[in-house]
């Protein structure tokens, strides 16, 4: 039986096994491949999505538990804060391989939405769950500060 989840503002009826992690529902069933697979164990943050605006790991949320929830993926990420984050990422050329960056952008947007002027310590706490093997961390940190500054103006 199909399970209803609101994805990027659109109600979707999903016919997949109820224990399927939303990561694979998004990627395989809905072709929303911006949400990435990195570990499947909630350890790396590559699959970060927003559930009612809060960052969550799509690999740790089953379809059954997502029933009725409002989920935003990188494809549906909109708004002033997200725009500032993505603009800062481009301006500072944060990306290298880029594979983790959907998750980084989702986590950074959630941080700046909750805390418009984060300290370095705030950034450590909010971003420590998002691994980047290219170690673009210094630029992610700078990007968050730059986005915060642009949102102030």
């Amino acid at each position: 039986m199909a399970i209803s989840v609101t994805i990027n503002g659109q109600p979707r009826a999903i016919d997949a096994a109820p224990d399927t992690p939303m990561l694979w529902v998004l990627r395989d069933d809905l072709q929303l491949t911006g949400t990435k697979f990195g570990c499947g164990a909630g350890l790396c943050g590559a699959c970060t999505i927003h559930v009612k605006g809060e960052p969550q790991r799509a690999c740790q949320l089953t379809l059954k538990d997502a029933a009725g929830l409002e989920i935003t993926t990188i494809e549906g990420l909109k708004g002033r804060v997200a725009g500032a984050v993505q603009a800062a990422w481009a301006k500072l050329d944060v990306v290298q391989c880029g594979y983790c960056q959907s998750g980084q952008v989702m986590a950074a947007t959630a941080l700046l939405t909750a805390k418009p002027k984060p300290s370095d310590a705030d950034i450590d706490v909010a971003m420590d769950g998002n691994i980047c093997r290219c170690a673009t961390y210094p630029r992610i940190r700078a990007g968050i500060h730059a986005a915060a500054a642009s949102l102030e103006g």
Partner: protein
Amino acid sequence: MTDATFSTQQSIFKMIGSPLDALPVDQPSAAEPSRRSFLKIAGGTGAGLMLALAAPGLGAVPAQAATPAGGGLADAFLRIAPDNTVTVILKHADIGQGAATGLSTLVAEELDASWAQIRTEFAPSDPVRYKNFAFGVQGVGGSTGLANSFEQYRTVGATARAMIVAAAAKEWGVPAADISVTNGVVSIASGKTATLGAMANAASLQAVPSNVTLKTPDKFTFIGKSFPRVDSVAKTNGTAKYTIDQQMDGMLIAVIARPTKFGATVAKIDATATEKSAGVVKVVQVPQGVAVIAKSTWAAIKGRQALKVTWDESKAEVRGTADLLKDYKALLDKPGLSARKEGDVEGAFAKAAKVVSVDFEFPYLAHAPMEPLDCVVHYTGSSAEIWTGSQLQTVDHGTACAVLGLKPEAVKLNTVWAGGSFGRRAIADAHFVAEACALAKAYGQPVPIKVIWTREDDIKGGYYRPMYVHRLKAGLDKDGTIIAWQHRIVGQSIMAGTPFESMAVKNGIDNTSVEGANNLPYAIANLSVELHTVKAGVPVLWWRSVGATHTAHATEHMIDLLAKEAGKDPVAFRLSLLKGKPRHIGALKLAAEKAGWGTPMPAGTARGVAVHESFGSYVAQIAEIALKPDGSVKVTRIVSAIDCGLAVNPDVVHAQIEGGIGYGLGAALRNEITIKGGVVEQSNFDSYEPLRMSDIPKIESHIVPSAEKPTGVGEPGTPVALPAVANALFSATGQRTLQLPMTRQKYTSA
């Protein structure tokens, strides 16, 4: 040598032969040819201007190599379309190192294009046209990407520019010398202008100049400046497509059950439960294990969980890392094969006032790129199409042909964005392509199949940076001068048993085992470097910066131990030993100056220095650490200086240094693969945890100004971070870092 030696690699090679046999390849040449001749392969078709490199010795490129307008181009380096887009065809993969941006910069420079009109496409597999001049085959690695393309891609741009200018001269009835091209606009003094795109069709009818003049550096408008990466936007909004993102009608997903011990093979399969598992389509055996093919990724993963495989471990490697370490250490007492010998080492030790001897241990390391290995194969029986983040296209393509039993022209390899590599996607046996082709062939239905490695497959899957032990023994005279140096290394060979063996292994010495040690830059009259190559069944592979990952630490930490014995400042000690090494000195002096070397440090903090050359680039780093009251240590700052010749895009150089340091610090502080009874003990990012945001120090990257030819930047930043941090700790506490990672020291991220 045990029977299990390189079992995985060799069994696949036996199966397919050398992948390089399948395709026509040139012998590698030491340097990029200074000029290439170009010829037009398509034009006057309304498709704009297309250029292809004429293959040396082949005369004209076969006409059928060029596909007509609109259908893409099989073998061009550049496409200027009437819509005014300039598409640069990338012969190299972009694994995050910035190849797409770098190669585009070279074309844009000589074409005088505007950066906004640049687009990129990955080239198809073609070892003749798209070879890396450093390898003789298509592929990128060893930080050669930009160095081997520097004149080639500029010549592509300059040739196109000359044809555009010739076309404008004809159309406007003026001498070519009166025409200028700036920022993508062709113009003459009278005010007439045209875009590159508007002139492209006419340009395609012009003769191809055989000898174009490249700009002198004072005329550069792109090279040496930091233009934005071409992939920034697509990689921040989720639209960049990696292998794992490929979606096709009827596509199936596969995961493979692999043996828990390297070299084990399938004895018995019980797929009863798997075949009943929802969404599973088929279970097939391949040389690498047992593949579960399903309608979705989750179905494949669950199907694999239900699978029962009995493994034949009779030829498996059953030793653990502790067993191997014991054997390796025993070899440290015996002379190895000589990799370098100068003077009279034994005689010098006999005269030494002081002798320092230390043993180092380096663990196996996984690469763990964020995108685990993956490959899509669509096999029809008579042809195949493959999508993967191919770093060695010629090897991947040749392997696919061999496994599928198809000719190269029947197999199309599409290179797509790769979610990191660090060496892991450049594999001499292309095992991840081989297994995907093997299972597609075994399945036999003409549908695309995407093979995905889970993170556990990745961490447990071998192809590690080899484990090594070193013994470094040095003798000082009464004045503190190093008069004797003996360096003995024990470890597996990365190159043995691969198609690259003849290039890299000479007289029994695999250069990747000793590089960084046998070219020690310090002036020491009596010096010996020896190697014991051992065999173990654990597959090994190059890991970002290859030999330097261990030799830089051993040599540069040793220098600090000796500086202390000699009572000398570590920077001054190095400078006194660097005779005729101006580029080491330049990097070292710049890093020391920028870090404020010699200025007082607050209590509880310390600096450490290291300098090392790899891949033709010279990197010095100064690390700063803070000791916490509870005894824990935080790396707070790293100041880096690189001499990489001319920095084509300085911001990309800085990015590679920042990332390289982060990667190296992971190996310094906490990453290791351990094996017990043949079974890898780590499995995911909890037990093999990369550095995270809070672990990363402040990093400051500087570039030594240089007009030398560009050299590598992807790898040289990585190995220097380890000894720099170790030397800071040694300075602060006197504690030596002889075993990596530095897990005996408690590190803190705050």
